[in-house]
């Protein structure tokens, strides 16, 4: 019997090297005494998690959400609001982040997924903006100005996140877990259905798939992973504000996914890296660095189909 050839997930050595570098980075940074770069790497990895979660719906299932940063906000507020009431239990905060993000995705998804194309794009955008304005209007939690979080999530003293290196390794662990999860999902039975629905939804229904519930499930999973990124972000920055879910943040996530190459496993992480690199390097040189970022995005939109992730992966789109 002939078997489908398992397609190679990518260039293993590059991935291996990247993980190795990330594992050793804290030691090198400590040796060079440049703690700033630890922060840069953490931010990069958190955004890579968020972008990977967006890629799950955007790249693999063809749902262009322009409101994905709302889940970062939900995850971050799941740290900040309990902290406001002196509740630092890490498991509780994590459960709130995942549960809150999942619930929001479920409720809005029920409406968003009934629509197609441009409507879907604008509705995801509108729902995210709704949360943004809602948090702006809640004076109790700082409104526009946000909240300072005075202590990070607490895991009964077993794993102390106040130590930045510990937080770093937690973030790295979450990133690797996210990538593994996305890889397994897109190649699973479930992944086949969502990719099939992206390719030809009408056909999927004609062969007997109730695609709506699969797409909705995918939408919820994606939201929850992004909620995890938000939980990390809240711990990392120690500060939350509605600005985290402003729609331009969602635009940046989309930019990362497309820069890296939608529908490729490592693309979003690469896109996040490029984004953070530009921000870190260009912002040193000029306060007008957004101009160059904007021009880059316009050029990528026109000429850079598939983004940079293709370098790291053969068989883009069919992992």
């Amino acid at each position, binding site marked *: *019997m*002939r*078997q*489908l*050839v*398992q397609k190679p997930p990518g260039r293993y050595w590059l991935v291996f090297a990247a993980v190795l570098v990330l594992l050793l980075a804290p030691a090198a940074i400590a040796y060079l005494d440049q703690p700033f770069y630890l922060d840069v790497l953490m931010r990069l990895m958190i955004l890579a998690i968020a972008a990977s979660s967006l890629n799950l719906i955007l790249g693999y299932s063809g749902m262009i959400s322009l409101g994905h940063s709302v889940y970062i906000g939900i995850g971050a507020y799941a740290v900040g609001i309990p902290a406001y009431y002196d509740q630092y239990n890490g498991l509780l905060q994590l459960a709130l982040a995942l549960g809150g993000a999942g619930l929001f995705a479920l409720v809005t998804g029920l409406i968003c997924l009934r629509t197609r194309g441009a409507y879907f794009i604008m509705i995801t955008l509108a729902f995210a903006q709704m949360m943004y304005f809602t948090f702006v209007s809640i004076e109790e939690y700082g409104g526009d100005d946000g909240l300072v979080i005075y202590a990070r999530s607490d895991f009964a003293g077993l794993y102390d996140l106040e130590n930045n290196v510990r937080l770093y390794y937690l973030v790295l662990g979450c990133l690797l877990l996210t990538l593994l999860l996305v890889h*397994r*999902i897109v*190649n*699973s*039975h*479930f*992944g*086949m*259905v969502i*990719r*099939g629905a992206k*390719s*030809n939804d*009408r*056909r*999927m*229904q*004609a*062969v*007997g*798939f*109730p*695609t709506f519930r*699969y797409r909705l*499930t995918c939408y919820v999973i994606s939201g929850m992973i992004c909620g995890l990124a938000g939980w990390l972000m809240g711990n990392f920055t120690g500060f939350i504000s509605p600005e985290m879910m402003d729609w331009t943040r969602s635009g940046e996530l989309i930019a990362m996914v497309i820069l890296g190459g939608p529908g490729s496993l490592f693309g979003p992480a690469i896109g996040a890296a490029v984004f953070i690199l530009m921000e870190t390097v260009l912002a040193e040189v000029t306060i007008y660095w957004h101009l160059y970022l904007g021009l880059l995005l316009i050029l990528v939109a026109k000429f850079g189909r598939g983004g940079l992730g293709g370098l790291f992966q053969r068989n883009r*789109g*069919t992992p």
Partner: protein
Amino acid sequence: MNAPLLEVSTLSRNFGGIAAASEVSLELARGEVHAIIGPNGAGKTTLVSLLAGELRADSGAIRFRGETITNMPVHARAQRGLARTFQITSIFPEFSALENVAMAIQAHAGHSFRFWRPVTQNAILQQGALNALEQVGLAGIPERNAGEMSHGEHRLLEMAMALATQPALLLLDEPAAGLGPEETTAMVAILRGLRQDKGILLVEHDMDVVFAIADRITVMVSGRTIATGSPEEIREDENVRKAYLGDGVDEGA
């Protein structure tokens, strides 16, 4: 005889006041090939869409294997054993031929809320897909990207996708459209091989195909059925001649 496999009674559908299907009634038994013919715009594709569930009927009823499916969504009908091919090829162009067929089998192999094990390790899907490809003569190219296959191969692939789920009823919307003579002959052979254990509802413009395999023929004109009968009866029918066959058998194609 038992209750028919498919029973359509007085099915109607309007589009902005124009009756695309008007009180269509027909029956189809297991093992029977029932062809729908008629000039362009007669409502044949509307009928297929109504049966498949992409369109909802304004009135009338559809019974399939003794169950009323008139208001059932597309996927639920497919789950109950109603498979179709499309007039305009509808496949998954980014996937291999094997994956296209495996997708169809997967739809009938329980739910797919299975998130971890790679689908490629599911031997049942892979083997079933290969068998279906073999049935239509595409077993030699399972890894070929469906988007890169020829038109004729697309028609066969669609047929394989429909067969792979072992449906009770096949809705075939012009399976021979755009095929060359040899490909058409091959398609007719495939359809002949299928008829024992299934019902086939065939919409087709190619009268050679229709008269070669149909047990019963229904003629539609302007959304109405004007005649139903054996191929011989239809050939002799005055109304049909006037309305349709009279102006050249192959006109409609």
